[in-house]
């Protein structure tokens, strides 16, 4: 692993995921090439009567109007499936109290969005604002610290040789595969013995640990920080800490955003952990708060439309973050897929 054997892996030892992929693709390419040549022989006669195939213009393979319409129609159907619940939530959130289920479910009537949002934040001395602030606190602090820790670990895995490196990476991969939810109940049992239950720390501490972040950090460190740069900085007399904070982290800036976003959303969306380790209402994140309201709806203690407006308000910041930071999502998911 320390010395590169083939030109394919020449970049860095930490670059194994890439190497695996290119090797795998190489195999697949060879396989399909074999298939292709076999098919070519068969297609020779079949394709002959097809007339002019049209010149190949890069990736713009010619299409017919019917195929364009058919493909777009099917995609439009799927878009309706994915978007109509969100559209309904938006429309329902704009309807005045008492009219939530009146009129068409998919069109506006009795518009009072801003009045509703006012009601939401005024309810019980602004408990919803407290929940939102808690979610922000858990997500920003948890993802911030978590990203730093994960990137440092991923960087060490990609760039340093040390004892137990292989074991550590194996454990990280294993932890990516076992969902966090399965650790929640044991965490609660342990926390309830240590008296940490019902504090901010009970949610923050487990949230900071992100094996997937470490995995992404390793992939990104291997691909965006050249060994030559580290080596040059060393020769200039910079110590390892300075190199990491002053040089490598800057080169990994886009990766940091990606890892931060993934962890931010994971923490913002978390439900089981906070619902289990928190008791007081004032510590709840918005997900736990909304579900607790929904339970009260069944008991008739709160209007359902409050839950709907709350759900709408809780979703908006995430959708905005998604739309504006798409690039980072895709690079993270693509890196995950390389595995």
């Amino acid at each position: 692993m320390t010395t590169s054997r083939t030109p394919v892996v020449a970049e860095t030892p930490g670059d194994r995921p890439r190497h695996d992929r290119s090797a795998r693709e190489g195999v697949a390419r060879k396989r399909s090439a074999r298939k292709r040549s076999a098919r070519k022989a068969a297609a020779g006669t079949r394709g002959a009567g097809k007339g002019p195939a049209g010149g190949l213009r890069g990736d713009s393979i010619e299409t017919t109007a019917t195929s364009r319409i058919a493909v777009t129609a099917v995609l439009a159907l799927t878009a309706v499936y994915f978007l109509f619940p969100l559209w309904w939530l938006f429309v329902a959130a704009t309807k005045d109290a008492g009219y939530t289920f009146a009129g068409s479910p998919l069109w506006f009537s009795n518009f009072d969005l801003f009045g509703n949002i006012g009601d939401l934040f005024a309810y019980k001395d602004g408990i919803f604002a407290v929940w939102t602030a808690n979610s922000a606190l858990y997500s920003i602090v948890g993802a911030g610290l978590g990203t730093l820790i994960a990137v440092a670990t991923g960087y060490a895995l990609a760039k340093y040789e040390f004892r137990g490196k292989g074991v550590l990476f194996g454990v990280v991969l294993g932890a990516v595969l076992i969902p966090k939810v399965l650790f929640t109940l044991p965490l609660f049992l342990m926390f309830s013995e240590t008296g940490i239950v019902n504090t901010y720390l009970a949610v923050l501490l487990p949230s900071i640990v992100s094996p997937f972040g470490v995995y992404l950090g390793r992939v990104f460190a291997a691909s965006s920080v050249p060994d030559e740069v580290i080596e040059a900085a060393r020769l200039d007399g910079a110590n390892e800490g300075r190199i990491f904070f002053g040089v490598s982290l800057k080169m990994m800036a886009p990766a940091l955003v990606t890892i931060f976003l993934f962890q931010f959303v994971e923490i913002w969306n978390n439900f089981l952990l906070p619902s289990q380790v928190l008791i007081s209402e004032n510590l709840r994140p918005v997900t736990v708060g909304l579900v607790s309201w929904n339970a009260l709806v069944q008991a008739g203690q709160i209007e359902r439309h409050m839950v709907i407006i709350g759900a709408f308000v809780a979703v908006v910041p995430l959708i905005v973050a998604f739309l504006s930071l798409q690039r980072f999502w895709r690079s993270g998911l693509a890196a995950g897929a390389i595995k």
Partner: protein
Amino acid sequence: MTTSLTSAAPPPVETKRAASTPPQRRRSRTGRYAIWFVGPFVLLFVAMYIAPILFAVYKSLFRIQRDALGLGGTQEIFDPLFNYAYALGDEKFISSIGRVLLFGVVQVPVMLALALGIALLIDSASARAKGFFRLSSFAPYAVPTVVSALMWSFLYSPTNGPMGQLLGWLGIEANFLSQDLALWAVANVVTWGWTGYNMIIIYAALQGVPGDVLEAAKLDGASPWRTAWSIKVPLVRPAILLTTIFSIIGSAQLYNEPFVLKQSTGAIDASYTPIMAAQASLQAANYPYAAAQSVLLAVGVAVLSVLFFRLTSRRSS
């Protein structure tokens, strides 16, 4: 790698310090630094992953003994196999596992077929407005699962939910929250939320299919269907396998969606999924049994993941 790089570094710089820092020494020096980089993670990982599991294993070895009158006084007696034997005979727990298996067998293939189909369509030359369609299917991933379950529970509501109304226009009458359909109502919420995520992973892999392969197929007279099936799908198999593994693991941890829908229907009980069953034991203050259930689940998922990982990496390499 450090060694091979030193020899590849530009010569003038190389000569400057080469004598004072032989490669051998440098490697051990950076190795010494590595502890500062991995230390915090390792510490937290041990505290938040390893320790709780070990504690749960320890806890699961005890049996709760309530006093004869059942007036609060309980005792924990060391009886290592009691909870595990009880779990294997616990009808509710076993049937929750069966339910989730059935769920996974149906929901995972449906969702992945949908994700693959959408990815292939967006990747096809005939697609227009690719960016919009990519975003629209990915948008549900931005919605917290709890919120999407709340939203769907309102949509499903048999009294005033719009789903009934919309299907009514199509002449279909269905109560999604009935005993027969509840599991598939849950499956729909999961499919809605995660199809786009899987689609993006597969789509990213499709982007990596080399253009010359597609051109060659075109030259050979392969139809777009044929190209998709015989060339694109085999080439993105690693991505499909990855999404399969993640989806199976996702089914095993099914909790948020049924938990929220449970608030709207009696068709979902407190131990509907294995995780819910463990939570129910916790509610019943039977901590050792809850611990045993958690340990069984963690071991089960770990074994499943490793098996699948072995199986797929052997086949694709």
